């Protein structure tokens, strides 16, 4: 074991050296102390002789050594060994030994200390263990910061080293891959032969060059364009698909017509740009026309047409359908007119004098026709239908007069309008600020009138007339409404028979008036209604004012209309109230409450205790009462109770008695981590739910302490975590020592994660 231990070996060697040194010093002084030595030896011999001479050392024979030491060191005496000093002697003289070593040797020679004994095996092992333990303890203590940080943190997210989910960049995946099988090697060779990217540059040289050719902005613009084009294409496709699905005949007819028109337009264009193409198109059209003319299609000669013809007598629709067929035929068989064909026709026209001029086909101006468009007179309106009967025969000279008449009429209407407008304004003004209203309204009317006159278009006139008539009716209705005060009373809901009796008798006749649009007169209605109802109500129901000394704080909130029918809003409110009143007419909650409170108050009042005993100290018996003096004496008066806390709170009963059923739910002792009850109370008082907190606060408050991901292995903490924690602590600084950034990120990301 000792040989194993280098330390002990060293110590032994040192011991030996020390001894050798002592010996050498002796040898130096030998000559001087020879006599002493001899005496000492003699003494020793004498002592050994005393013991019986058994220990007398045997004489040793010495022979010539087989190998003679090259250093030629020999022991002096017979019993002597080679001393270290003998060995060192040589070192002193030889110049090969450096002076430093020589000095050290001399120092050694001079020191007189003895070396301590080496430690026992057990002892030395113990020291070793202790050292090792110290080392391990220090080493393991470097985790302390991480441990405390984790213990303090609001949320722990596991696993600790989460890689960002989602596809990894190709470079990362590729770099980790190595060629393994022969097949792969072959593929690899092929790739390298064709200058295909293998490892780091994922793009081929050509691709890279193309990438370099386009700047980022350009690429973005190009991409945007492509995106737009793609989007447009998809829109068009979708539209076309949608249109193809439409089954409506009418729609397709209109569509076809539009297309034809468009085509004609294009065709005209084509004539100029591409005459040959146009000619071809023309030929095509001509061909189609010829076909149409040859076929019996759209000629009303088919089976369907015949069946329709039978129905046509009675059925308007059938007739129209047949008409349409014919029109279609006509359309299709008509010659296409275009500039190209026009030219031809012009030539034709010149050579064809029989052709009548256009105006021949025009409608005659004086002709009576039910179709106003045929007459070419725009001013004729359907509204004037009755008058137009008279007018049609009238000569053109009368036309102007008629127009003047019309203007006059319009003026009258406008006057009416103005009148009504004035009234309406007046009402508005009355609501806002009574006074200075009439002039204003007139002034405002002025320019409006002029404008109206300027736009003397007939259609507008008719429109005005319609409006004016409507307004007239409304005005009439409103005036009727304004004049009758009991109309407002119409809003009162009839709840009881008495209410119904209170209503004015003309109520029924005025009912249609409620349909009129103006709301102003009705707005005045509720107060009176309420008043009427209030006076009525006082008879039966409890007055809150009477009961509650304090007014309830009214919260004025600009309420959005909760009902679609705004005109009846106030009515609804009243309704609701009334309904509740009606529903709870029987149970008078407030009175009950007051009774309860009074009872409690009485019970809490200190009572006078009468301790008088009749017949004690005086005569007793039937009909005899204890004297008043005695009664006064034995009546114990109790001090008046303290004023109740709910004295001034009519709606509240405060009981200061202990409630046994509640105490079962109350905390009796201060729980552990809290230091005083105020702390604990405040902790309990802070609500967590979303009823009392905003969304974000709730999220923060209800964050679970430990988050784990479903189905992932949580590896033990590794050295990287230590490094990362350190880095984050250094980086984050004062921001938030308990929660690192990436932890937050992970917390956000952990969607499927759950508590522990």
């Amino acid at each position: 074991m000792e040989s194993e231990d280098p330390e002990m070996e060293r110590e032994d060697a040192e011991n030996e050296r020390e001894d050798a040194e002592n010996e050498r010093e002796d040898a130096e002084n030998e000559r001087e102390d020879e006599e002493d030595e001899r005496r000492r030896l003699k003494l020793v011999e004498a002592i050994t002789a005393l013991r019986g001479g058994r220990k007398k050392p045997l004489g040793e024979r010495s022979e010539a050594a087989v190998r003679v030491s090259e250093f030629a060191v020999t022991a002096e005496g017979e019993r002597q060994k080679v001393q270290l000093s003998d060995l060192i002697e040589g070192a002193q003289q030889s110049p090969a030994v450096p002076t430093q070593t020589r000095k050290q040797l001399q120092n050694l020679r001079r020191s007189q200390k003895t070396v301590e004994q080496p430690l026992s095996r057990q002892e030395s092992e113990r020291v070793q263990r202790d050292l090792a333990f110290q080392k391990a303890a220090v080493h393991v203590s470097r985790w302390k910061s991480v441990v405390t940080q984790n213990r303090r943190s609001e949320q722990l997210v596991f696993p600790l080293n989460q890689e960002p989910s989602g596809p990894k960049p190709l470079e990362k995946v590729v770099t980790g891959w190595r060629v393994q099988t022969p097949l792969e090697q072959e593929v690899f060779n092929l790739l390298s032969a064709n200058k295909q990217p293998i490892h780091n540059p994922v793009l081929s040289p050509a691709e890279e060059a193309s990438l370099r050719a386009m700047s980022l902005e350009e690429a973005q613009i190009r991409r945007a364009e492509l995106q737009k084009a793609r989007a447009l294409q998809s829109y068009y496709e979708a539209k076309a698909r949608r249109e193809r699905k439409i089954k409506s005949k009418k729609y397709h007819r209109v569509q076809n017509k539009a297309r034809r028109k468009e085509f004609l337009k294009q065709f005209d264009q084509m004539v100029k740009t591409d005459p040959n193409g146009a000619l071809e198109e023309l030929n095509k059209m001509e061909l189609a026309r010829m076909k149409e003319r040859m076929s019996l299609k759209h000629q009303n000669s088919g089976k369907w047409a015949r069946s329709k013809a039978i129905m046509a007598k009675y059925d308007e629709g059938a007739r129209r359908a047949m008409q349409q067929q014919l029109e279609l035929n006509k359309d299709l068989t008509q010659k296409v007119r275009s500039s190209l064909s026009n030219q031809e026709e012009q030539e034709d026209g010149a050579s064809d004098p029989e052709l009548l001029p256009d105006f021949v086909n025009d409608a005659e101006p004086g002709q009576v026709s039910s179709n106003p468009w045929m007459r070419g007179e725009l001013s004729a309106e359907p509204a004037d239908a009755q008058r137009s009967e008279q007018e049609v025969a009238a000569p053109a000279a009368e036309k102007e007069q008629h127009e003047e008449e019309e203007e006059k009429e319009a003026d009258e209407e406008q006057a009416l309008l103005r009148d009504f407008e004035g009234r309406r304004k007046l009402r508005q003004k009355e609501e806002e600020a009574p006074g200075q209203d009439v002039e204003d309204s007139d002034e405002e009317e002025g320019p409006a009138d002029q404008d109206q006159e300027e736009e003397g278009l007939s259609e507008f006139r008719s429109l005005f007339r319609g409006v004016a008539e409507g307004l007239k009716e409304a005005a009439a209705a409103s005036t009727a409404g304004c004049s009758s005060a009991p109309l407002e009373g119409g809003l009162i809901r009839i709840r009881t028979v008495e209410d119904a009796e209170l209503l004015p008798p003309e109520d029924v006749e005025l009912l249609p008036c409620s349909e009129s649009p103006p709301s102003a007169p009705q707005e005045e209605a509720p107060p009176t209604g309420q008043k009427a109802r209030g006076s009525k109500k006082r008879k039966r129901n409890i007055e809150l004012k009477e009961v509650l000394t304090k007014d309830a704080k009214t919260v004025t909130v600009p309420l959005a209309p909760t009902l679609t029918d705004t005109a009846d809003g106030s009515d609804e409110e009243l309704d609701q109230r009334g309904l509740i009143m009606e529903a709870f007419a029987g149970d008078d909650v407030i009175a009950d409450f007051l009774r309860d409170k009074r009872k409690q108050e009485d019970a809490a009042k200190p009572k006078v205790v009468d301790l008088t005993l009749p017949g004690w100290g005086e005569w007793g018996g039937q009909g005899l009462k204890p004297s008043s003096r005695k009664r006064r004496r034995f009546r114990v008066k109790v001090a008046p109770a303290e004023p109740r806390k709910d004295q001034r709170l009519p709606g509240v009963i405060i009981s200061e008695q202990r409630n046994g059923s509640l105490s079962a739910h109350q905390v009796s002792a201060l729980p552990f981590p809290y230091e005083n009850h105020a702390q604990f109370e405040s902790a309990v008082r802070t609500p967590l739910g979303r009823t009392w907190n905003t969304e974000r606060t709730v999220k923060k408050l209800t964050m679970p302490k430990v988050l784990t991901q479903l189905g992932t292995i949580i590896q033990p903490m590794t050295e990287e975590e230590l490094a990362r924690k350190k880095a984050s602590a250094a980086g984050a600084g004062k921001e938030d020592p308990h929660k690192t950034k990436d932890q937050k990120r992970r917390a956000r990301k952990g969607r499927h994660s759950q508590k522990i």
Partner: protein
Amino acid sequence: MKVKVLSRNPDDYVRETKLDIQRVPRNYDPTLHPFEVAREYTRALNATKLERVFAKPFLASLDGHRDGVNCLAKHTRSLSTLLSGSCDGEVKVWNLSKRECVRTLQAHEGFVRGMVVRFCGTSFFTIGDDKTIKQWKMETPGYGEEEEPLHTILGKTVFTGLDHHQKEGVFATCGQQVDIWDEQRSSPIRSFTWGVDSFSSVSFNPVETDLLGSCASDRSIVLYDMRESAPLKKVIMTMRSNTLCWNPMEAYYFTCANEDYNLYTYDMRYLEKPLVVHMDHVSAVLDVDYSPTGQEFVSASFDKTIRIFPKDAGHSREVYHTKRMQHVICIKWSADSKYILSGSDEMNIRLWKANAAEKLGVLAPREREAANYSQKLKEKFQNHPQIRRIARHRHLPKSIYHQTKELRVMKDARRRKEMNVRKHSKPGAVPVVSEKEKHVVTVVK
């Protein structure tokens, strides 16, 4: 007839874009909500009751062993794989999601004493009563192939415990001494002895990966550093520790399961006194395993129960038991910290939920929020007597219930006696010894 409809304007409660902050439909002014505490209390009470209603921790029982299950091993890479070794030398590999045995192999003659999966998950080691260490492939042998170990090391003595290094090809065994083995060699690269003749378990520190701890039969726990030639330190307790488990998140804490019905959590730097004494079992604790989050640990006991302790709580938060479950010999906490696996005497492996009332599987966001909220409510009101009473109530088998009571009586009696002795002796003559100090005999350097 007029139909009255309540209509709300969507502008009042719908955000214009999802980037806007939520429109608040109510007034959060606390003066308008005078009963918030009462309402939350009711909610907390309901949540607590519901938790107890939904607390159904037992998931499955894996049967197939023909003798008691002596050791379990988690797969390091696959959550659904579990290995178990029984007292007849059979090792079974289980698929937990299918709840079936996928492979059976006769690994040893006599007990399979220990089993551990290599960190890469490709092979596993077993030790047995036949004095051998065997390394097996994780893959099932193909058709016609024979089930043979990759390596077999014949030892001189019986091995009782086994653990593998977290990152290197080094493993440790214990028996008469603690040996550190290189996977490539057939003789240990290092052996530690410290005057004891048998060790019951050895375990590597998962964080500070070169440290080990072992439990010896002379009632001591010995710590080692794999790189040193001598052990580090030893603490001798009043009774023997059976197993030891390091906290996977806090490098210097470990917990040991003791014969005196308790578990002790130590800081390896200060072995003079355990950090926490975890009491509640009513018989010897046989095994302990930490949750991979390091927040809790689970213990298996001879009293036929499993208990879950928070790492710094003196008493358990949960106790699992079944009528048919006998002495629980080994226990593991699954690597996703959701499940607990227990192997017991009566040849079954049982799968439990780590949180008894937790809903398994993916939760809808609203569901998750509700669960979080109710959890926080329970925490907030946990000190209220009614809630605490409901939350803490557990049904226990009669024997355990009575034994708990008995132990309490005994403990009270002892304390009373001590107090009386102290009262009637010179002040200072009978010092007050805390519960933590009571169980440590000495620390040997």
